[in-house]
């Protein structure tokens, strides 16, 4: 079952602009993670935010978490063409110490 659902499904922006992707989920979580996937490759972990955190930064990435709305957002600032990829949110529920449930992803295209 899909725990995380990303929105939008696809996003196209110009280089230098900011990109915002949203994720909604259904059940209580232990943490929420964002991953990136370049075309035809495996996923790479970007950032993790725990259920008791509201905001986290890593370089040009900013993640927010609103547990009352069961939603998260990933902001990429000053985007670059190299940021073109699919981005997935993944949730680790409180009842599972190991499993992640992934959403269907947002395809981000950054135009030079």
């Amino acid at each position, binding site marked *: 079952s899909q725990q995380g659902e990303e929105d939008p499904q696809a996003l196209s922006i110009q280089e230098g602009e900011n990109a915002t992707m949203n994720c909604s989920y259904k059940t209580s979580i*232990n943490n929420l993670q964002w*991953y990136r996937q370049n075309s035809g490759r*495996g996923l790479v972990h970007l950032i993790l935010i725990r259920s008791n955190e509201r905001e986290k930064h890593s370089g040009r990435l900013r993640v927010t978490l609103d547990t009352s709305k069961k939603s998260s957002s990933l902001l990429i600032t000053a985007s670059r063409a190299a940021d073109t990829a699919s981005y997935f949110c993944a949730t*680790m529920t409180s009842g599972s110490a190991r499993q992640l449930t*992934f959403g269907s992803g947002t395809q981000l295209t950054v135009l030079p």
Partner: protein
Amino acid sequence: DVKVTQSSRYLVKRTGEKVFLECVQDMDHENMFWYRQDPGLGLRLIYFSYDVKMKEKGDIPEGYSVSREKKERFSLILESASTNQTSMYLCASSSPPWTSGGNEQFFGPGTRLTVL
């Protein structure tokens, strides 16, 4: 750096064949996972293992089995491949959640399997 390798990048098999997909990780991770990825559906968990010889079903285990005889190796087996198993298969590993960085999964490059 953690390295997760998968035996093949591309694989073409015929309906009814037995297919083995192998995954090896070099970071002594306890947990290993097999996912399939299809357009519009994201990643779906097939099976996972949290120890040698241990396995647990994920969301879509039907038509698949797994084997974990050694800690570093986790194999996905399609007993009798069918066309609806054409997909990208991704392997991942992680350390226990109580360890530093233990919640993060490390992925292999994927195997694109086509069943004709």
